């Protein structure tokens, strides 16, 4: 096998990390994991914690499934994957509850719902079932980073325009409000998250025409 000689960060492996950030982004290109992108992006802090949680869950379960891949009977593979993911999600949920209780409360059911996040099942099925642990790990990190970066961009705009804050700190000066500036209430509502994601998709496809589907 030639892969033994292959360096840990070969150009192919680097691609696993960087591709999901741009041209095969799970949210804007594959349109997976939209639900949580709408639900937890009102403020940046919860969005960041959510992105981190997904990263842990996806990276670890990718590695675990990759180790088990030759011993999982194909007919029950989805159940096995679910068990691994669910175990990870419960771990993450308990850790969040123990250390960042406030944010855990804000994220509420959405941490538990990571189990049903399409990105995770998608990567397990499409990648970890057929690849070695190290590359699966990189793939998990890359995809969850691609998910996280969109979450944080959306949350940045929603928090800035909807609450006038960034990461909880007031950034819109008081003077603006005296002149009649108002926080945009629509930004706090989920539909606007969809529109912001839509605008990101628009910008991305305008810059990279290859992503536009042929009719």
């Amino acid at each position, binding site marked *: 096998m030639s892969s033994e000689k292959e360096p840990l960060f070969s150009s192919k492996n680097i691609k696993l990390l960087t591709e999901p950030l741009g041209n095969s982004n799970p949210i804007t290109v594959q349109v997976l994991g939209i639900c949580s992108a709408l639900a937890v992006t009102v403020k940046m802090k919860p969005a960041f914690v959510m992105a981190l949680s997904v990263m842990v869950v996806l990276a670890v379960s990718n590695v675990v499934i990759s180790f088990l891949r030759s011993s999982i009977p194909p007919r029950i593979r989805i159940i096995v994957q679910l068990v691994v993911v669910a175990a990870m999600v419960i771990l993450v949920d308990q850790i969040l509850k123990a250390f960042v209780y406030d944010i855990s409360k804000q994220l509420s059911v959405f941490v538990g719902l990571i189990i049903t996040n399409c990105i995770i099942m998608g990567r397990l099925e499409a990648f970890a079932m057929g690849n070695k642990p190290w590359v699966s790990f990189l793939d998990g990190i890359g995809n969850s980073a691609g998910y996280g970066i969109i979450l944080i961009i959306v949350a940045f705009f929603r928090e800035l325009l909807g609450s006038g804050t960034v990461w909880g700190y007031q950034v819109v000066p008081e003077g603006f409000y005296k002149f*009649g500036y*108002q926080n*945009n*209430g*629509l*930004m706090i*509502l989920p539909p606007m998250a969809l*529109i912001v994601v*839509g605008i990101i998709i*628009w910008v991305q496809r305008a810059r990279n025409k290859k992503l536009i589907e042929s009719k």
Partner: protein
Amino acid sequence: MKFLRGYLDKIKPKFEKGGKFEKLHSTFEAFESFMFVPDTVTTKGTHIRDANDMKRTMTVVVLALIPSLLFGMWNVGHQHFVATGQVGTFWELFFMGFLRVFPIVVVSYVVGLGIEFAFAQYRGHEVNEGFLVTGMLIPLVLPVDIPLWMVALATAFAVIIGKEVFGGTGMNILNPALTARAFLFFAYPSYMSGNAVWTHGMMKGDVIVDSYTGATPLADAAAGQIDKLPSVADMFFGFIPGSIGETSTLAILIGAAILLITGIGSARIIFSTFIGGLVMGLLLNAFAVNPYMSVPAYQHLLLGGFAFGAVFMATDPVSAAQTARGKIIYGFLIGFLAILIRVLNPAYPEGMMLAILLMNVFAPLIDHYVIEANISKRLKRAKVKA
């Protein structure tokens, strides 16, 4: 006129392909066809071109909106004078409203047309006349003291997200003017609802006479105070607080007459919307478990934005249903849902905007099933030998 024509002809080559200002072609084109009837003819085959092109259609709709606009200006002054306990002449009232409403109209047109021109330029399209109507509708459905930057933002949102992302005029799913209003309604509720926003000066804290609350009749009714409802004549002529252009049912009916006589507004949609509202109103009357539900059905048609929405918003040819039977279903459901939301949902004192936007989304589905039904009906009639 001849001078203008001559001048345009002189500078035209510069905007043609290869000319100095080639990139500004669609801007030039827009101004030329705005000033003169375009001389484009169909070159292949025999065609009859209707003189009733988009420019004329849009102009007629804008004309139909003028009564509402003028009355709205007067009513702004009227409400302000009533609220502050002053007495003024007709022209004082009108002028005061004019000073408030005119800037909103200007902002709406400048922002909207600016974006339309920019997109047309960038994509190499022609500039469409569609925004002429939208630009007039937006001010008419807003409260008078709305800050101008909000008008600009909402117009930009409506034109970009409501229209241009779908491909521009003729491709939009939702009515752009109502998209602008819905945006403001959810983004800045404190400027779009409540009792103080409908009368000029109340938000700033002008001295208000004791008996004046500024509440629209719908707000009073939603609070269960139906004894406070104005007289039917006041509702019909529009001497009530409300958005700028929607209060006077009479002015709207004049507009409706213009649209119907010229055949531009769909009679099917307008009438079925009113019937839908009436049916829902009667249903509510039949059950009347609270005071609001016992408001006579016909009064619902006079209040709030119902008439304005039915005549000018629901009939938008792009976002409405296209088939004849579809139009009737579409209009009926708008009226039906508008009154339902208005009376039974305490969060939204007026349901017209939401009802129209909802049915805009369903219009293609309605059309689909109308066409399917027609196909299966005809197939049954046909006798095909196997």
